[in-house]
């Protein structure tokens, strides 16, 4: 087994569950998250950046975010096989989970797709993956206060995007049929 494969194997063993959870949160589909995790492994295996990355998880996490939003953007049209039954993500079992429905989350994720890559990463890492500003600064190579500013800016932007089209749900994509 090459060094790259060993590195990848260790990452999947140690952090595969976290990456799968992240992909599930961003796609709201377990079957899609499963497929994207495999695609992520293949891409990382061929990536010189991953080979050189000081923090393989941070690199993989960022690549997973790109993959998930690429899928949301229409990449799912390219999927070779479609499942007969969609496997939706499991919503949190509490009141907050009840107060926010799937359609709202789809809209929020579609709005996130319209942010710049760095803003999107900030939102995902801080609010969804719940990393601290300090941890994110390490991964994004920014200062914590820049990360904090970027997160606030991203919230403003996403709020503006959602406010501009309050009743427009995210456009339906092929895989949702």
């Amino acid at each position, binding site marked *: 087994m090459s060094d790259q494969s060993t590195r990848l194997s260790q990452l999947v063993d140690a952090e595969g569950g976290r990456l799968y959870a992240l992909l599930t949160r961003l796609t709201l589909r377990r079957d899609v998250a499963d497929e994207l995790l495999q695609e992520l492994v293949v891409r990382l295996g061929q990536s010189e950046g991953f080979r050189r990355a000081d923090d393989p998880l941070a690199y993989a996490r960022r690549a997973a975010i790109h993959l998930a939003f690429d899928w949301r953007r229409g990449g799912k049209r390219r999927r070779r096989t479609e499942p007969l039954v969609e496997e939706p993500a499991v919503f949190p079992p509490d009141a*907050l989970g*009840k107060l926010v429905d799937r359609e709202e989350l789809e809209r929020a994720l579609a709005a996130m797709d319209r942010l710049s890559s760095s803003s999107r990463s900030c939102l995902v890492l801080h609010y969804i993956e719940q990393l601290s500003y300090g941890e994110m600064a390490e991964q994004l190579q920014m200062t914590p206060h820049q990360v904090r500013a970027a997160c606030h800016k991203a919230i403003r932007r996403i709020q503006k995007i959602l406010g501009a089209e309050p009743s427009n749900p995210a456009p339906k994509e092929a895989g949702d049929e």
Partner: protein
Amino acid sequence: MNSPEDRTILRQLEVLSRIEPDEASARLALEHARAAVRDLSVATAGGPKGHVRIRSRLFHFVGGLTMRQRMAAFGSVGVAALLGFLLLWGGLVEKPASAMEKMAESIRKAKSYKCLQIVQLTDDYPDPGAPSVTEGRYTVYWLASGSARTEIVHPGQGWKGPGPEYTQIFPAGKPSIHIDHRTKKFYRYPVPKRAPYSSVFDDLENLSKFSAEPARELGTKQINGKIARGFQIDMKKMDAENPEPGRAEIWIDLQSNLPVFVRYEGMKGLGCSNIQEDRDIQWNIDLDPRLFDPTPPKGYTDATPKPPTLEEQVRQIARSLRIYAQASGGRYPQNRVNSLDTIQDLCRILGVVKWPGGEEKGNAGKAAEAIDGFDRMGDLLHYDFDAAYHGKTVTPRDKDKVVFRWKLDDGRYEVIFGDLRSETVTAERLRKLEGK
């Protein structure tokens, strides 16, 4: 202060963060991923090719030298290092750590400060058509009394001026004002409980505490007519609480021991990087007090979000506390009060469950009714409204004890008692009520 729209998106993100795949699907996905790794290692047996690291190239070069050439090369490096060491050891120059300490002390004694701060962010994955490098220019004014002002321009992003795109004014101990010159609107914000009021000033505060050894010396040069000595420092050492990767270059005026130029460079990689330079730094200059006057320009519209009326605030807070106490068997929230944490806590107490099996339990509606009041309490505690929460010691049975209070604009206090009655009282009466 978070607006209702902010809270909506924050709640949506919070729900996303708590979506967990079930164990069976996670196990299956991991098996698929491991199979993909195995397939990949078969396909790429022999390892990646064609990548030669710089370090390898260096050793390849050294390996190509004759033994005499190698001795000469390493000998020169060794002699230079020994000379440098002797120079430092001999005390021919001031020790760097001491120079840093002097700088920190001089900053702490400074009365005022002005500089041009340029922040350049590089995004390797910009939006289609957007530039990969963006720049923000902040003219920063600061007074030791605690007042500050920033004027912000983003060159190349359509603003034609005159003047800055935004102005932020933070008068000491008073509400701040954020002025948007593009839309001719302004927003007022309450006084936060503690500085720094803006991240622009974090670095200055960090430098005023810095005393660690620099990574290396950069020599001396003339900057803005002053002879300055340069040091490179590891940014991780600048802020022990929030260590961050990267390096800073600081040039210190030999006469005043104050920085005249600072450059922060975040480490590159992973799609984005940043460089910040503090230029044209002027210390201890006279700054016009009008710079810190928070009066908005004539003709600008006040776009500050309006808080609910006092009666509405009291009603919301009392309702939230009542719901919590009823759910928890007669206790008010025991931890810090804010929207997300307290509501989450309340959900847990109410036993609100809708998964697995789709069967609903608990009372999600009650939790939703409590959100506004806890939001408001969180805001009052965050900003400087002299708010205090005594829920750890006060229960619904303590009808004469204060469970929550905050200061009103007229100097009096709004008080909510343990039995959730409310009253507007003077500061003196509050002291008696709180047993001080």
